[in-house]
C-alpha cells in the first residue's frame, strides 16, 4: 500500500488543518513534537480524513498538547487516561475516527494499564505515542522509558530501573499495527501513521522524539543538532537488526547495545471491540 506523498508546505498544512489562534506552540527549540504534528497532518491529508468526523484525544504532558493545535474536535483529558476517554468515544459512536496523542509517561507510565486493556479489547483507534525518555513538561524526571543509566532530575546518579519496550508490549498483546520510528526523517512515520489510521483496530505508532531541554541536557545531548544526530545513529531498522543478530560478527552484535529497533513490528488482522459489539447488538436487540 503505497502512500503517495503530496507534500504540502508547513504553511499549507497550517491553513488547512490548524487553529491559527493557538500559535505559537508551547514547544521548546529542538523538540520533535512539531514534526510529529506535521507527519500526522501529512498522513491525514494522504488518507483524506474528514476532520468533521475525527476526534483527537490526549492525556497530560507535552505531546498531549497536540490536539489543541488541530482544527477538529479534541479532548485533552486527565493524566494517563486518554485511552479510556477514547474508548468511550469509539464505543458510543463507532463512526468517528479517533486519533490519540500521548507520551511515554502518560501512555505507558500512569496510563500503562489502560494501554494494556485498550489493546486487549482492540478498540479501533490510532495511538501516536511520543517517547522522549522523560517527563518533559515537569522538567525532566525519570520515566518508565528512561534508558538504563540515564540521568534525570529524579535519577541524579543514573537510572537503575529497566526501561519498558512499549512496542514489544503492544505486539505481545496482539495490537493489529505496531511501529516505531524516530522523528528525524518524515517518510516512514508519515506512511506508518497513514497505515495506522487505515488499520481496522488498535494501531500504535511510537515516535522517538528528542527532548534537548529536559532530557538531552542531562545526558550529554544538549545541542539540538547533536541530539537529532544521536537518534539517527542509535536507531537500527528491524531487518538490519535481525540480520546482525543472526549473522553479524561479535563486534557488529556488540554495536547494537544501547540502540533501538525501528520499523513496523506487527501488521495483522483482528476483530475489533466495535465489530463484536455491533454483532452482539444485531443478535440481541429486541
Amino acid at each position, binding site marked *: 500500500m503505497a502512500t503517495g506523498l503530496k507534500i504540502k508546505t508547513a504553511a499549507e498544512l497550517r491553513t488547512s488543518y490548524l487553529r491559527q489562534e493557538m500559535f505559537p506552540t508551547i514547544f521548546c527549540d529542538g523538540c520533535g513534537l512539531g514534526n510529529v504534528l506535521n507527519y500526522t497532518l501529512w498522513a491525514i491529508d494522504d488518507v483524506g480524513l474528514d476532520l468533521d468526523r475525527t476526534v483527537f484525544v490526549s492525556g497530560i504532558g507535552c505531546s498531549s498538547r497536540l490536539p489543541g493545535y488541530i482544527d477538529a*474536535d479534541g479532548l485533552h483529558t486527565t493524566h494517563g487516561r486518554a485511552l479510556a476517554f477514547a474508548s468511550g468515544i469509539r464505543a458510543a459512536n463507532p463512526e468517528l475516527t479517533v486519533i490519540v496523542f500521548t507520551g511515554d509517561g502518560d501512555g505507558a507510565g500512569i496510563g500503562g494499564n489502560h494501554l494494556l486493556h485498550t489493546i486487549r479489547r482492540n478498540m479501533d483507534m490510532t495511538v501516536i505515542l511520543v517517547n522522549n525518555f522523560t517527563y518533559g513538561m515537569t522538567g525532566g524526571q525519570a520515566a518508565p522509558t528512561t534508558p538504563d543509566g540515564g540521568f534525570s532530575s529524579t535519577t541524579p546518579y543514573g537510572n537503575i530501573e529497566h526501561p519498558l519496550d512499549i512496542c514489544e508490549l503492544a505486539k505481545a498483546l496482539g495490537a493489529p499495527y505496531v511501529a516505531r520510528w524516530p522523528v528525524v526523517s518524515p517518510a516512514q512515520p508519515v506512511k506508518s501513521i497513514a497505515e495506522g489510521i487505515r488499520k481496522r483496530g488498535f494501531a500504535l505508532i511510537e515516535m522517538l522524539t528528542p527532548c534537548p531541554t529536559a532530557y538531552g541536557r542531562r545526558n550529554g545531548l544538549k545541542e539540538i543538532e547533536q541530539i537529532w544526530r544521536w537518534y539517527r545513529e542509535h536507531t537500527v531498522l528491524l531487518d538490519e537488526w535481525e540480520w546482525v543478530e543472526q549473522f553479524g560478527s561479535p563486534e557488529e552484535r556488540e554495536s547494537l547495545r544501547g540502540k533501538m529497533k525501528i520499523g513496523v513490528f506487527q501488521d495483522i488482522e483482528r476483530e475489533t471491540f466495535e465489530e463484536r459489539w455491533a454483532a452482539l447488538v444485531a443478535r440481541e436487540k429486541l
Partner: protein
Amino acid sequence: MSTHRELIRRALGPRVQFVQGDDACAYGAVLAGCTFFAGYPITPATEVAERMAEILPRIGGCYIQMEDEIASMGALIGASWTGAKVMTSTSGPGFSLMQENLGYAIMTETPCVVVNVQRSGPSTGQPTMGGYGDMMQARWGTHGDHEIIMLCPASVQEALEMTIVAFNLSERLRTPVLVFIDGELGHMRERLVIPNDDEFELVERPRATDRATYRPFAPGPDLVPPFAPFGSGFRTFVTGLTHNEDGLPRASSAAIHDQLVRRLAAKITNHLDLITRYEEFYADDCEIAIVAYGITARTCRDVVEEARRRGIKAGLLRLISIWPFPEHIVARWAERVRAMLVPEMNLGQIVHPIREAVAGRCVVAPYARIGGELHSPAELLEALEGLQWQPA
C-alpha cells in the same frame, strides 16, 4: 419497527416488579434515555452494572466493562461528548478512584450520572453492609473549587425516580449528578411501579445550532453553554485546563480562571429551584425535628408518629437533594424548632452543613451509627425524648 421508547418498555418488562434499589437505578437510567454505561464490578453496586449489561444491547445501547473505575469515568465522559446519555455505578473505593475524572467532567461541563451504592469505609471496610460515609467526599472529594449535585433517595421507587431526575439535571445544567444510595437500599427488594412516559419529564442538553457563531464554552443567560457533540462538525476543543469561552487553554490568566470557576459554581447554585427536593412532616407544628436522608429517613417516619402519640411535638425533614445543601430549608426549620436530631450512618457528616444553616438558632444533636446496622426506632425515640428536656 418499534420506536426506541417501545424497545425500552419491552426491555424493562412488566410495569410492576419486586426488585432491588440497584435494579431501580438501572431502570431509571434506561427510562431517562441512557444508552451508554461504563463500569467496574464492586459490592454492593454490581447489580446496577449487571442490569445495564442485560438491557443496553437489547435497546441498541452500549455497555463496556472497563479495567478500573478511573477508566469507567473516563469512558463515560468520552461517550457523553458523542451526545449519549451516560451512567456509571460504584461504591466507596471506586468512588474514590473516580474523583479526578469527576472533576474533569465538572470543569468540561460534561453531563453524566454516577450512582454510588455506599458501604462503610475507610478502605475496604464493610463491602456488604450499608453506610453513608461518602457524603462529604461527594461534596469535596475532587480537587479545586466546585459545586456538585447529589440526590439521596430513600426507597426503591424513589431510586428509579431520582435517577431520572439526575439525568434531567445533568443534561439541563451540563454537569455530573450523583445518585447516592447504600448497600441496604441497593440490595433491598420492594414493589416498583415503572412509570409511563407521560408520568415523568425528559430533558435533553441544550444544543448549539449555528456553527458560525458557536463558541463552545460561552454560556447562555442561564450560565449553561449549548452543546455540540463530537462529529457534528462544530469542532470543539475540550480541556480540563482553565479555558476561555472558545475552549482554548488560558491556564495563566487569573481573570479567566476566576470567571470560569465562579460561573461553573453559579450555574448550579442559581438553579436551586430545579435541584432542591425534600419532604416535610409536621413542619408547622413541631418542636423537635429529625433531619434525615437516605435509608435512615425511613425509620424516622414511624418514630415521629410514635413520639407524637407520646406527646412529643416531633416532625421530620427528609432531605432528598443533599448537594447543593438546602440551607434555606433547614434554616426555616431552625426558626421554629427547639432541637434537631440528626441520625446518620456515619460519624457525623451532614450534621455539619446543618449546623451551619442552623447557626445557633436551635440545638443540633447528631446521632451517629456505623457498622452497617440501621438506627432502631427505639433508640431514636429515646433520643427524641432526651432532647425534649434540653434547654433551648
